[in-house]
């Protein structure tokens, strides 16, 4: 019989036991009667020999080994009954814990999905990624085609592959849309071991320039765009205007190697030739064969790379010479995901840990004050023979039960917090980041629930049983214990205040960082500036005809109602900016990279960037005319200090090209990639001169509401040619805001956590002040009878709270200062531990504390001295 059988059939077992023992007594009695005793005396003797019937019964029950479970069930029933009797307490407790556990669960979910969970492929632990290191810089992106020879088949690492991630325009039938495309080398799918859900995946033979162009869809895209139609196999789609044949669909669980940007479509790297002079950034992966260690793989790759430098890459040796190749485990996928999320996840994990600490201390003080109210009951139980251990266990059952209940509600909270996190981190909508209830997540929640239940329950349980019998004999109050009784509660409150101060200091600094960035002058006017990308590659304006489209657009777009002016550029003024190496004439030194963009006539006026000297581009600066350029102040300062840059020349293809391009204007500095980065040297060239068949960005200055104007502009462009693909419609303000998403996330979440901490602190401080007024009624009455004024009494109560807050602040502020040093790189426009931020946090908390303590203080002033004295 198993133990749970014994547990479930308790009643039957008890009956049998009874029967067995009465048989024993009857037999014994019969024997004694046979020996000559009278039957009444015989029965008495038999019972005596067996011992106390209840004791024997109990011992036999203990022998079943299910005692602890019986007790547990009893404790759970008791705890539920107690909680039901006090629904207000239960609700506050559950809500507090649900929030604390919920935010931790959500952050754990994010952590698990992005850095802990292995890729859904077989033997993911064998997958490794190549990294480069040059000096102190390192990265996972390799220049293609420079590093392409690394991919050549080699016996030691047969599975080496590369992939890159980019957006593409996908047309099927007559409708086009932007999709996320992964360009992969031949071994990609075979190394990963991913085969077609329908059809096939790509093979090495597909990745040759001469091969037929084929593509593979992801399951999600197949579902979204083609409704899981199997006849999609063999259909032709156009990617940036190039036809591809669909040969298969990947399995539903496969999301590529980067969870944050799963591909809609994959096609071979060599399917479309790379335009001359341009390059990609690719990621390299391979699989370690059984028996090959990470160190061996490092050695093999490094040797191979050294060998390449000696043979094929000889020309690059001068600058690639000190590059080292490293190999890191990649069971969880692309390294950049971990890199990108490292700081947010660390900051988030610490913050939610502090929030949970606050929730637990709050719960502990709530339970403590309740334990104080139950002292008498516990005293009585101790007096009639309950062991202390038993009562502690029962208290812990109650708190763990609360913890588990909080965990269940916390899962709901986690669902909500997860969505908040995802929206704040602004992941791609297609990111494989749905909230999932998987075993590790549930195990984490269960662990946190039980652990917090134990942590916040242990002190109140110990405390409640310490007074023991004394409490039963008296009214449950210790004489003169008005202060001492609350000892541990005060400790918890101090911890809570300290943690809250730390959170509030962080919140203030993150909110101010966001404010500083938002109010920063970027050097251009982002208001009423509408952006839209136009892709001409499928239209009749291909190749050399691109300038005709530019002319058409500059003529027609400004005439659209609601448009003040419009200008074109290859890239958005603010966003991911390109770089270019420049060689200034009369200067043999390579000055290195400057920011670079290609813009059309009137671009700077349209963007609100003042022209300092010279002129803007005009439509006469087109192909065939002398090459001209406009530079910014920073460029002028760095390369032509104290000189007039107009008429000076530079080139972008080595020292020999230095005379190629003439500077015709200088514009004011602006920030181009990030608000955090001070203006860097930048050079602009004329779009009309360098027009190619590539997507470009229309910058439209609108007078009214951007949405309606955008629709009109879109119609106007499609009237030029319906095959012009338009995407990326957004305002410049939105574009700027996306670069602030991490700052916004920190500001929003830390403000949220800070507010939560404040509310909990308020509850805790109020509780203690109220309890203190209640237990000091007598003393306050005497003071008032002796002539204490109302102000004296209010101060008496407030002082107590303020002392707690002062101690908490004294601990919390240094902790906060120590922590903010770690987030220094996340701040902007203020130093870590800046006094005014600390002051704001401390004053907010003090203000809340005064409000929390004021109500009980007011109640204290209404104490009737006579009543209070009679109370004793």
């Amino acid at each position: 019989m198993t133990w749970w059988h014994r547990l479930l059939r308790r009643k039957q077992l008890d009956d049998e036991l009874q029967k067995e023992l009465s048989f024993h007594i009857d037999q014994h009695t019969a024997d004694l009667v046979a020996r000559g005793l009278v039957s009444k005396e015989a029965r008495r003797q038999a019972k005596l020999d067996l011992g106390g019937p209840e004791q024997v019964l109990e011992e036999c029950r203990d022998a079943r080994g299910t005692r602890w479970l019986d007790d547990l069930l009893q404790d759970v029933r008791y705890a539920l009954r107690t909680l039901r009797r006090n629904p207000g307490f239960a609700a506050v407790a559950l809500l507090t814990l649900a929030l604390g556990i919920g935010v931790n669960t959500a952050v754990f979910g994010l952590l698990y999905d992005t850095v802990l969970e292995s890729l859904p492929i077989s033997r993911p632990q064998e997958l490794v990624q190549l990294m480069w290191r040059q000096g102190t810089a390192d990265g996972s992106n390799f220049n293609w085609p420079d590093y392409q020879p690394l991919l050549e088949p080699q016996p030691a690492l047969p599975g080496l592959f590369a992939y890159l991630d980019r957006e593409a325009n996908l047309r099927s039938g007559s409708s086009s849309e932007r999709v996320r495309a992964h360009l992969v080398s031949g071994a990609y799918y075979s190394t990963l071991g991913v085969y077609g859900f329908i059809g096939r995946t790509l093979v090495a033979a597909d990745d040759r320039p001469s091969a037929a162009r084929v593509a593979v869809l992801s399951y999600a895209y197949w579902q979204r765009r083609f409704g899981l139609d199997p006849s999609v196999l063999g259909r032709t789609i156009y990617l940036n205007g190039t036809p591809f044949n669909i040969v298969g669909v990947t399995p539903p669980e496969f999301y590529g190697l980067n969870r944050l940007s799963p591909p809609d479509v994959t096609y071979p790297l060599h399917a479309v030739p790379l335009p001359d002079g341009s390059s990609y950034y690719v990621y390299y992966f391979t699989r370690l064969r059984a028996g090959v260690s990470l160190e061996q793989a490092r050695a093999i790759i490094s040797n191979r790379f050294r060998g390449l430098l000696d043979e094929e890459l000889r020309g690059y040796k001068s600058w690639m010479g000190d590059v080292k190749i490293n190999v890191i485990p990649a069971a969880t996928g692309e390294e950049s995901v971990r890199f990108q999320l490292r700081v947010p996840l660390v900051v988030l994990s610490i913050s939610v840990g502090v929030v949970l600490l606050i929730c637990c201390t709050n719960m502990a003080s709530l339970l403590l004050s309740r334990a104080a109210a139950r002292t008498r009951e516990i005293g009585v139980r101790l007096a009639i023979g309950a062991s202390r251990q038993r009562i502690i266990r029962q208290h812990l059952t109650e708190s763990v039960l609360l913890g588990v209940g909080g965990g269940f509600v916390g899962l709901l909270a986690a669902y909500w917090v997860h969505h908040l996190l995802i929206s704040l981190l602004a992941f791609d909508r297609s990111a494989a980041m749905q909230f999932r209830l998987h075993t590790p997540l549930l195990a984490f929640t269960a662990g946190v629930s039980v652990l917090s239940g134990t942590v916040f329950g242990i002190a109140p349980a110990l405390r409640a049983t310490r007074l023991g019998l004394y409490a039963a004999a008296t009214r449950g109050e210790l004489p003169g214990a008005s202060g001492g009784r609350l000892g541990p509660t005060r400790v918890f409150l101090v911890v809570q205040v300290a943690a809250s101060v730390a959170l509030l200091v962080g919140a203030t600094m993150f909110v101010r960082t966001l404010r500083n960035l938002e109010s920063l002058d970027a050097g251009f006017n982002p208001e009423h500036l509408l952006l839209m990308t136009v892709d001409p590659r499928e239209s009749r304006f291909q190749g050399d005809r691109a300038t005709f489209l530019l002319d058409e657009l500059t003529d027609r777009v400004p005439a659209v109602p609601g448009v003040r002016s419009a200008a074109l550029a290859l890239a958005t003024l603010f966003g991911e900016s390109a770089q270019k190496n420049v060689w200034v004439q009369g200067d043999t030194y390579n000055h290195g990279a400057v920011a670079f963009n290609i813009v059309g006539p009137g671009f700077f006026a349209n963007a609100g960037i003042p022209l300092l000297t010279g002129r803007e581009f005009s439509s006469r600066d087109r192909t065939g005319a002398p090459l001209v350029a406009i530079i910014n102040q920073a460029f002028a300062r760095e390369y032509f200090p104290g000189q007039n840059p107009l008429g000076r020349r530079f080139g972008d293809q080595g020292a020999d090209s230095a005379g190629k391009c003439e500077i015709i204007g200088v514009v004011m500095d602006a920030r181009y990639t990030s608000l955090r980065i001070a203006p860097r040297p930048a050079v602009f060239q004329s779009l009309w001169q360098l027009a190619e068949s590539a997507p470009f960005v229309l910058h439209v200055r609108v007078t009214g509401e951007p949405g309606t104007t955008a629709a009109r502009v879109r119609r106007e462009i499609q009237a030029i040619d319906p095959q012009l693909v338009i995407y990326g419609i957004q305002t410049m303000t939105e574009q700027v805001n996306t670069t602030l998403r991490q700052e916004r996330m920190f500001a929003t979440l830390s403000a949220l956590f800070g507010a939560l901490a404040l509310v909990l602190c308020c509850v805790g401080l109020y509780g203690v002040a109220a309890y203190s007024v209640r237990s000091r009624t007598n003393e306050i009455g005497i003071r008032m009878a002796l002539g204490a004024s109302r102000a004296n009494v209010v101060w008496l109560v407030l002082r107590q709270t303020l002392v707690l807050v002062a101690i908490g602040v004294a601990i919390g502020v240094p902790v906060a200062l120590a922590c903010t040093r770690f987030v220094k790189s996340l701040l902007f426009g203020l130093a870590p531990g800046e006094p005014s931020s600390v002051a704001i946090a401390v004053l907010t908390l003090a203000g809340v504390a005064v409000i929390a303590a004021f109500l009980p203080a007011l109640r204290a002033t209404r104490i009737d001295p006579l009543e209070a004295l009679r109370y004793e």
Partner: protein
Amino acid sequence: MLAKSDLPQGTLDLLILKIVALGAVHGYAIAQRLQQVSHDVVQVPQGSLYPALHRLENRGLLDADWRATETGREAKFYRLTRKGRAHLETETASWKRLAEAVGLILRLTEEVVQ
């Protein structure tokens, strides 16, 4: 009358197993048998007999069923399981070894004293 000594720790289980090994038997009979075989030298409190029986049953060393006695009443009869028999053998062996060792030590000290 000589003072009866308490049963050494852990020996009650061994005695019970030994008695049950002779054939299926109910609790009262075990108590009787214990008293007889120990010649009233050791005291077996009847109260501790039943918890011990139940413990052994839960450990799978004893098996029990309800049967009618000679007098026609239903009683719970205990039998030794295969596991119980193995346990009895190892315990008996180790008990004997212990007893011999203790005897040896006692003889040794007697010789030294002489």
